């Protein structure tokens, strides 16, 4: 516990000035000092001890970025003295606590609550570093402080802005499943049912054995195979730290990963998510369809970009360890020439040989604006640089395509939908 002086307490010492003016001597000085100390001491003796206060917290829990969560601090005063408190709950700034400092009065034997509203501005875990309780003396001349141990945590989840696109994609998924009859048999489809032949059906889908048993011609119908395995690999290396628009590339990538997770779960597929750069950071594996979306949201919310290069061989090893053949592998990494040269290409071709592979990349829409600049020489040089960057990206994307990967390159707003559409296209084509 610490004792400290308040500003009014220090200013009361000015009251000694007339005495010093009347009797200017060292003894008066001493007497004034003693009198002032006595005044402060008397006031302090009547102060409620902040160490005896019981402080408890109702944690705000989890909140999506962009919305608010409520928490409470409950302060109980078990003593008999009235406690005039000045409370500070020291959260980190991006936790968005509306008011860190509160003044409140807790009469003896009573309890008061401090309502807190959190509007976090950064994804990830937030915590309260300390709770400082100052107990003001009755005259307000001094205070006693204590730091009770009241841990506080708040998990700010990814905003998942693309969830508004989920209903339309699910509808298309249902249409796909409903159109199962026109599907050809192929890899990634499974037997659905037998029905009577109608004009227009492919003769190759006639089930001759069943036709022989019955009088009419019977066809087999197929539907997209369910219960496939989807592995989403999110690259968290330095390239994911780049800011596009208002948020880092990683956030857009996670947005796409979440939409794909939600959609694939609706389609009956199993989704695993792996965040990796030099080492695997977070993985969600084997979650039940009910909880997988929440698990992925909660697990990826603390993930931040790291200033390292991705070890693609490591990625290949992790993918091999987590999947069987023909699991859909989605790599969320920017298609950048430097990155592709750093070993993505051979790994991608190896992965594409055994899995359907989708490489989803967050493109930078501001490049197009740069490429259209024609105002002066400076703008034209910039346009040339942007054009060159675009060409290099195209080249890298083509190289990946030649390896057998499906490349989805779109801006941060459009990528989640584009990736979901690519998934639906693969599903409809029976390529899973």
């Amino acid at each position, binding site marked *: 516990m610490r004792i400290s002086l308040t500003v009014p307490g220090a200013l009361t010492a000015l*009251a000694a000035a007339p005495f010093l003016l009347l009797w*200017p001597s060292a003894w008066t000085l001493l007497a004034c000092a003693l009198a002032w100390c006595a005044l402060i001491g008397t006031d302090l003796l009547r102060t409620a001890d902040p160490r005896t206060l*019981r402080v408890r917290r109702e944690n705000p829990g989890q909140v999506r970025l962009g919305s608010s969560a409520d928490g409470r601090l409950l302060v109980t005063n078990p003593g008999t003295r009235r406690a005039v408190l000045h409370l500070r709950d020291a959260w980190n700034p991006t936790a968005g606590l509306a008011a860190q400092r509160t003044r409140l009065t807790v009469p003896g034997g009573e309890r008061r609550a401090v309502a807190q509203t959190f509007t976090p501005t950064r994804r990830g875990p937030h915590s309260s570093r300390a709770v400082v309780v100052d107990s003001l003396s009755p005259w307000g001349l001094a205070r006693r402080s204590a730091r009770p141990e009241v841990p506080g945590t708040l998990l700010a989840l990814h905003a998942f802005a693309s969830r508004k696109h989920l209903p339309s994609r699910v509808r298309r998924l249902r249409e796909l499943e409903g159109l199962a009859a026109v599907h050809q048999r192929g890899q990634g489809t499974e037997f659905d049912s037998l029905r009577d032949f109608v004009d227009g059906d492919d003769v190759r889908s006639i089930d001759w054995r069943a036709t022989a048993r019955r009088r009419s011609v019977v066809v087999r119908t197929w539907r997209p195979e369910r219960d496939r395995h989807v592995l989403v690999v999110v690259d968290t290396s330095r390239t994911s730290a780049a800011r596009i628009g208002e948020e880092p590339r990683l956030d857009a990538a996670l947005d796409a990963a979440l939409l794909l997770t939600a959609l694939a779960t609706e389609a009956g597929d199993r989704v695993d998510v792996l965040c990796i750069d030099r080492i695997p950071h977070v993985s969600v594996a084997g979650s039940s369809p009910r909880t997988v979306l929440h698990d992925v949201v909660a697990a990826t919310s603390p993930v931040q*970009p790291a200033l390292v290069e991705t070890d693609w061989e490591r990625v290949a090893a992790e993918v091999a360890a987590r999947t069987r053949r023909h699991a859909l592998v989605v790599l969320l990494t920017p298609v950048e020439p430097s990155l592709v040269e750093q070993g993505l290409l051979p790994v991608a071709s190896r992965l594409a040989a055994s899995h359907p592979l989708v490489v989803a990349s967050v493109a930078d829409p501001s490049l197009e604006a740069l490429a259209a600049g024609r105002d002066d020489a400076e703008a034209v040089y910039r346009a040339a640089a942007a054009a060159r960057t675009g060409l290099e990206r195209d080249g890298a994307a083509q190289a990946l395509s030649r390896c057998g990967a499906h490349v989805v390159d779109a801006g941060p707003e459009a990528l989640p939908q584009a990736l979901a559409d690519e998934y639906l296209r693969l599903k409809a084509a029976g390529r899973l």
Partner: protein
Amino acid sequence: MSAGGLLAPAPTSGPAAGAAGSSQGGAEQPPPRNGLLVAVLVLALLATVMVSVLRGSYRDGPLEPDAPSPQGSLAAVRVLEDLGTEVTPQRRTADAAETLRAGGTVLVTAPNLLGAAQVDLLRTAREEGGGRLVLLQPDFVTATAFAPGVRPAGTTDEPTLLRAGAGCGPAAFGARSLQLRPVAEVSGHDTYYTVPDGAAGCFDHGDGSAVVVADGVVVLGSASLLTNDRIGTLDAPALALNSLADPQGLGWYIPSAGDPMSSLGPTLLDRIPGWAAPLALWLLVVTALVLLAVSRRHGPVVVEPLPVSVRAHELTIGRGRLMHRAHARDSAARALRSAASTRLAHRLGIRRETRRDALVDALAPHTELDAAQLHRLLGPTPVADDRELVRLAHDLDRLEKEIS
């Protein structure tokens, strides 16, 4: 732990009521305390002002002619003025010398502070004008300088009762008995002086006399003859008034640091009143306390490691600036041309890997430009300067617009 587990007996401690109470309790608390503080401060300020006003605007110090304090000499000055002597407070040696030249009387309240030049000036002025000089407790050097033969014979710091002896003559100044007491503010002791031949001494004590008159120079051995609190005792008024009264006027000369002739040392401190030092010390302490109170931090500084964030197109802009600075016009033109070619090929449905000839052949029917111009536009034609590069970019734009 349930919310009810901590409930106090008071009825207001439900969660909702508690939350409301906390905000109200916090809001109503500070004003009365602030009011009290303001009242205390205002009272302190008023008391300080009152004290300084009641003291009046006089200069306090030992034997100051305006000071009504115990160590001042306002009483003697008032009575002298009532008796017809014009008393002039003097701070400069030149003024005092002027009075002496005019034949008046000058009282030097602190002759020991005079430098050699000042002593010389006063002595010659007295010899020229024939005025009278009254010295209060001069030391050996000063006493012998003004009145040769007069020198301190002894001191005492005890109160002493003295009576005028038989051979006093003019040195008694009409007084018969004196009660002397050292004045702490002046010297802290009384001095007795030897009486040379041809001079008159009175109020003997031991080997010396408290009052010596030698050739127009009066030496007084005790400051208690002139201070407000002691002048009323026994015959001190008679001695003070008789020795100082002069129809030619009395110069009340207080040697000071402001005198141009003064050789006194660090005398600025002498001007500071006595209460200044303790008060300044106290204010210093109060300032330190206030700073300490203000600078107190309420809990720790919270540092938060924020993720790095770089705008994605910084690299491209940097590359553009680099090309500009290096005047890499050809490489810029190449990038613009191949980007445009790629887009055109895409629009015309040609494979992008095709040669330029094929692209030009496909373009020719759709544009006004002939094949040579198209080759110049899309081919590796050198670019002379920046203006030409800008024109090239515009030409490519126009071509793309025609095709679309």
